[in-house]
């Protein structure tokens, strides 16, 4: 279940970061946007459950409509975040701004209880299969998420493997060269933000419909790092590698630690160590093997002979261009 939603999100992030080279440290915000969209579109009127929480819309739409709306909102928020990258500022500066956006979004949403539930968040978000028995309902839900993943993978492969994907990679490796070839860098960057955002939105919606509650604590900026680690460990720009990375990172490391025995005197110790391992792993991979476990496949280079393969492989963290002076 978590694997499924994390997979969708990680593919989205891989599209933005691994394939198009947009340094999005605010990715979790689009996931959150999707989750909130689903929540407020499906919660129903706020008198429905004793009126103990307030929210803005008070309408109850069918499940699939709400998920699609989440995808749309995710795409829009993704584009809005991407607009900050339109000013041609340096990659790391842009990443810093994104990090700030992520921190700020959590503060703003948390500060105002009237809008999206504030710090306590929203709860009692309906599950589409609540009419089934809990166990069957869960399995049906897992099956549906698995189906969404299959569809998502297919869509993503078409996108990154096709001409568009090649154009995005070209933009990542050398923006000026791509522009000189006649690609509109701005348009492509926003497009990848939109598609990545839609993936994030769906991921958030599916996640929130399953767990039933959502609050700023669930999308702290460190969650983006978890997805980023999955992308880096698995191999940037390689959808299959990213899937593998997600499985190892998001599932084994972050969900897995919850099943380890808790040490009574130190509650939260295992989770904390999980994050420590995660951060260390990111650094270790960037230092030792920046291309990840599975390298990005670049079939086109085979036709160009040795000279091209000897060229620096611009896997994001590797060096495609000369280091800044």
């Amino acid at each position, binding site marked *: 279940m978590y694997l499924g939603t994390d997979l969708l999100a990680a593919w989205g992030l891989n599209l933005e970061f691994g394939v198009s*080279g947009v*340094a999005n*440290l605010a990715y979790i915000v689009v996931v959150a946007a999707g989750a909130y969209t689903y929540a407020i579109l499906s919660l129903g009127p706020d008198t429905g459950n004793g009126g103990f929480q307030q929210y803005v819309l008070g309408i109850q739409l069918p499940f699939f409509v709400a998920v699609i709306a989440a995808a749309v909102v995710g795409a829009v928020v993704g584009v809005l975040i991407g607009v*900050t990258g339109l*000013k*041609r*500022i*340096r*990659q*790391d*500066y842009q*990443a*810093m*701004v994104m*990090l*700030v956006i992520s*921190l*700020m979004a959590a*503060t*703003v949403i948390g*500060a*105002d209880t009237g809008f999206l539930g504030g710090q306590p968040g929203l709860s009692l978000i309906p599950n589409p299969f609540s009419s089934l028995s809990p166990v069957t309902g869960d399995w049906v839900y897992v099956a549906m998420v698995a189906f969404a993943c299959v569809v998502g993978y297919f869509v993503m492969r078409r996108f990154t493997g096709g001409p568009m994907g090649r154009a995005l990679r070209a933009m990542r490796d050398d923006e000026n060269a791509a522009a000189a070839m006649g690609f509109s860098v701005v348009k492509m960057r926003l497009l990848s933000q939109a598609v990545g955002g839609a993936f994030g939105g769906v991921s958030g919606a599916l996640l929130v419909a399953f767990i039933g509650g959502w609050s700023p604590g669930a999308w702290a*900026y*460190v969650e983006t*790092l978890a997805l*980023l*680690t999955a992308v*880096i460990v698995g191999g940037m720009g390689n959808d299959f590698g990213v899937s593998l990375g997600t499985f190892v990172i998001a599932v084994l490391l972050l969900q897995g630690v919850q099943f380890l025995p808790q040490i009574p005197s*130190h*509650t*939260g*110790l295992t989770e*904390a*160590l999980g*994050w*420590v391992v*995660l*951060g*260390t792993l*990111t*650094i270790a991979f*960037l*230092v030792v093997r*920046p291309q990840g476990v599975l390298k990005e496949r670049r079939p086109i280079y085979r036709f160009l002979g040795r000279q091209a393969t000897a060229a620096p492989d611009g896997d*994001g*963290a*590797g*060096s*495609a*261009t*000369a*280091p*800044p*002076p």
Partner: protein
Amino acid sequence: MHLLIESIGFGVASGSVLAMGSVGFTLQFGISNVLNLTYGGLMTLGAFLGLPLLGMGLNIWVTMALCGLMIGVVSVVFNRTLVSPLVRRGMQPFGLVVVTVSAGIVLEYVIVAVTGTSTQSYGNLSGATLHFLGFTLTSAQVVIILVTVGLMAGLHLLLTRTQLGRAMRATSSNRTLARSCGIATSRISDIAWFLSGTLCGMAGIGLAITLESFDFTLGSVFLVPMIAAAVLGGVGQPYGAMVGGLVVGIASQVSAAYWDPSYESVVAFAILVIMLLVRPRGLFGRNSSANKLVA
């Protein structure tokens, strides 16, 4: 009117902590050209290192100085072991950002693993309340303001009156040229990381004093106004960051007095966004390596 003056007073107090932090952040960036987002984590570490020192019965201001020095050393070690080898290998700026963010998270959760997630406090250190010219400040806040003024004056003298400061400014404005003039730029970098870490640790303690209670998210939350202050003044410009810190501090305290206090940091964020859209070089953006941020 009374409310305005009072909130300006608070703004100066929180702005001086902010100025300390953002000057450290921007100084190091200006010289080594690496955005150090571990800064928030280092600041938290400084605040937490203060706890056992205070427990040993040390004076708070001695603790502040000691923590500053310790974080300075940690910062140099961090640069030497992780950042500068990666820079030498030609890692792209974005890779470095991911490395420093990850390192910050590792640091943050190591602190959690040691101390737990509970809220910590130095106890009430604010001392007597002073009234003058309509301002109401605690004596601790006054000392923090004075310490900041002293540090900033010292930094100004260092940058303008000494051989070392001249070398630092030269490295900041053109590293290659500075090196060919015989300046040991990697040593200058180390010194910049040390000064930056020292300011960071002291700002962490100052923040812990003014906030009175803190937890492991202290630094990462404070990173927003610090970056806003640095950007406002022009990233890489120490003088800009001093002014930026004061402006952001006063703006957020005044707005907190008249508006909802929970939106305090939103003001910092708004300043940041406006600056990025209108003038990404900052108010005082001049010829320095930071200008290469904007193509």
